């Protein structure tokens, strides 16, 4: 990084004269060049909107800096981590005199423009050798406490159908208190179906278009525990000879838990004990006649993820289980055999319509960007259909990017699945 920085500086300076300015600072042989390194840090504070969402490990690292000598490099590194964790585009460090002589207070201030920023996100991008391209992008405008987003998606990976269309959302991040948020999601899709799905589906199951509107509220019960509730109104036009539109209106609620502890790679040397991250959620979606839903069903899903990072090592363990009772539309059913579950298997070979039951587990291990993983799981509608499948894969994963080849573990001809992309 330092070499790149110096190269960049020289590229700017060279055209001014024939001779370049001198190279970067020499090795520090005679003490620090910043006179403030003699000062002691009294405290480090993070202020501004969203500062309460700072993780406990990072908060603890910031606390550990107190009592140490002023170190610009260390503080810059911590500022980067705060920015990254809070997704704050503007973070300013202010250093002021402390209460005691020769002590300073360091304040990280999250800029006000955080809420006014226009942003474009490519939140998902994937090539899967069996399912083709998938992509999702959004443009977001933050005005005060309100976020307006508009996006486009084409996804052939997550459901048994390929859905392509638009997504729009409005989010109010603070409704009187930081603990209550409101969100309205709208989406409109056109569907494409695989031949295997069309062969297996009943005439009234396949739809051409789907429109969804989902208002939800989120309550922060106790900092790591968050509860969301709302409704999801879906209308889909069936591909019957006489076009017919059905509604699937469901009450949705989700309980989420997210906790982190320990310290990861950003910690000072010798203090890297590893960072643990646990996420767990339980969600239920109930389509009911009370909301004038055509299908009546109850969909339960529980998911848990554990991640441990230390130095160049990154271990992830995931678990998913779900059950649907009643008759749910195809977009509610469980799929495995994509870029996230039973990688290496083709979802259309396992269950082209999706299933009403799922159990899945996976272990990913990354060392210096090299990835190895193992998946196992099963999907079924009836108990006698339950059959455990397994897969193995190798690849590389770095900064959200992933490229891998996965193999199903089975007898007979094994055709590997290749996939590459970001954030899936």
């Amino acid at each position, binding site marked *: *990084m*330092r070499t*790149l*920085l110096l190269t*960049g*500086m020289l*590229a*700017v*300076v060279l055209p*001014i*004269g*024939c*001779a*370049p*300015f*001198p190279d970067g*600072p*020499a090795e520090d*042989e*005679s003490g620090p*060049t*910043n*006179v*403030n390194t003699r*000062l002691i840090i009294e405290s480090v504070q993070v202020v501004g909107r969203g500062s309460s969402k700072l993780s406990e490990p990072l908060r603890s690292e910031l606390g550990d800096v107190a009592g140490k000598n*002023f170190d*610009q490099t260390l503080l*810059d590194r911590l500022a*980067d981590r705060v*920015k*990254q964790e809070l*997704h704050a*585009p503007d973070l300013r*460090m*202010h*250093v*002021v*005199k402390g209460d005691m*002589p*020769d002590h*300073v207070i360091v304040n990280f201030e999250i800029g006000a423009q955080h809420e006014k*920023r*226009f*942003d*474009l*996100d*490519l*939140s*998902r991008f994937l090539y899967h050798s069996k399912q083709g391209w998938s992509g999702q992008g959004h443009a977001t405008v933050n005005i005060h406490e309100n976020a307006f987003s508009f996006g486009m998606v084409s996804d052939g990976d997550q459901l048994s159908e390929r859905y392509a269309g638009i997504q729009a959302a409005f989010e109010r991040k603070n409704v009187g208190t930081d603990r209550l948020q409101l969100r309205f999601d709208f989406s409109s899709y056109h569907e494409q179906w695989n031949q295997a799905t069309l062969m297996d589906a009943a005439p009234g199951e396949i739809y051409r278009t789907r429109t969804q509107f989902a208002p939800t509220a989120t309550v922060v019960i106790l900092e790591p525990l968050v509860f969301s509730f709302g409704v999801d109104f879906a209308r889909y036009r069936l591909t019957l000879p006489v076009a017919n539109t059905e509604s699937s209106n469901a009450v949705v609620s989700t309980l989420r838990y997210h906790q982190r502890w320990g310290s990861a790679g950003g910690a000072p040397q010798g203090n890297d004990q590893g960072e643990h991250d646990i996420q767990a959620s339980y969600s239920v979606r109930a389509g009911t006649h009370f909301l004038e839903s055509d299908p009546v069903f109850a969909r339960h899903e529980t998911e848990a993820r554990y991640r441990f990072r230390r130095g160049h090592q990154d271990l992830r363990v995931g678990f998913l289980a779900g059950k649907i009772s009643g008759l749910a539309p195809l977009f509610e059913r469980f799929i495995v055999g994509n870029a996230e579950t039973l990688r290496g298997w083709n979802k259309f070979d396992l269950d082209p319509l999706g299933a009403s039951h799922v159990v899945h587990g996976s272990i990913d291990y990354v060392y210096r960007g090299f990835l190895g993983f193992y998946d196992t799981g099963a999907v079924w509608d009836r108990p006698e259909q339950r059959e455990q499948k397994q897969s193995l894969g190798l690849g590389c994963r770095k*900064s*959200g990017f992933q490229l891998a080849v996965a193999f199903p573990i089975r007898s007979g001809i094994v055709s590997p699945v290749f996939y590459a992309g*970001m*954030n899936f």
Partner: protein
Amino acid sequence: MMRLRTIKPWWVIAAFLSGMAFAMWAEELVLSTQESRLEFAAPRIHFLVGKPLERLRNASEVPFAFKITLWSGNRSHILREVPARFVVSYDLWEEKFSVTKLVTPRRTARHLSENAAEAWCLQEMSQDVTGISPTEPLWARLEIRAEDGKESGLPFGRGNITDSGISLTSLIEIFSHPAATTQPHWSVETGPVTLDELRRGRRRG
């Protein structure tokens, strides 16, 4: 006649002093000689201002790149180009500046006022002019650049990729930064002037 004789020297001195003062004010790069060294002063240039000063008062150190260029003849021949780097910091409690010249061995001046810190940097840029003809016309240019101590962003550097995806706005911001114009910089010139003229006490702009 008597009256004229008494007034004339006063007028000469006053004219000389006011001319000197005007010249000092008007010139941006002032040359002088001290034995065999050519010294530089830039009374109208203040580089401890604006963003660099803001960073300094926030306890950061700010590196400055200096370059002196000397031409001779018909300004066609570059006689000498001398680059140097200084790191300036500001003691929050003493409210004084500290400047380190990054040479081997390092030279540091501490407990300086704002003006003294600027002057010290220029003083450190003085040049040995032994061997240069006293009648050779010389031109000089001083360039100063404040450098950004932070790491520049890379297209896929830290902070651009988050759990929620890659932020295209961050990438656009990185590529849209004008590299040179955002960097505080100063440049002043003087000449032609000979060493003889400087030794006689004349300064020219």
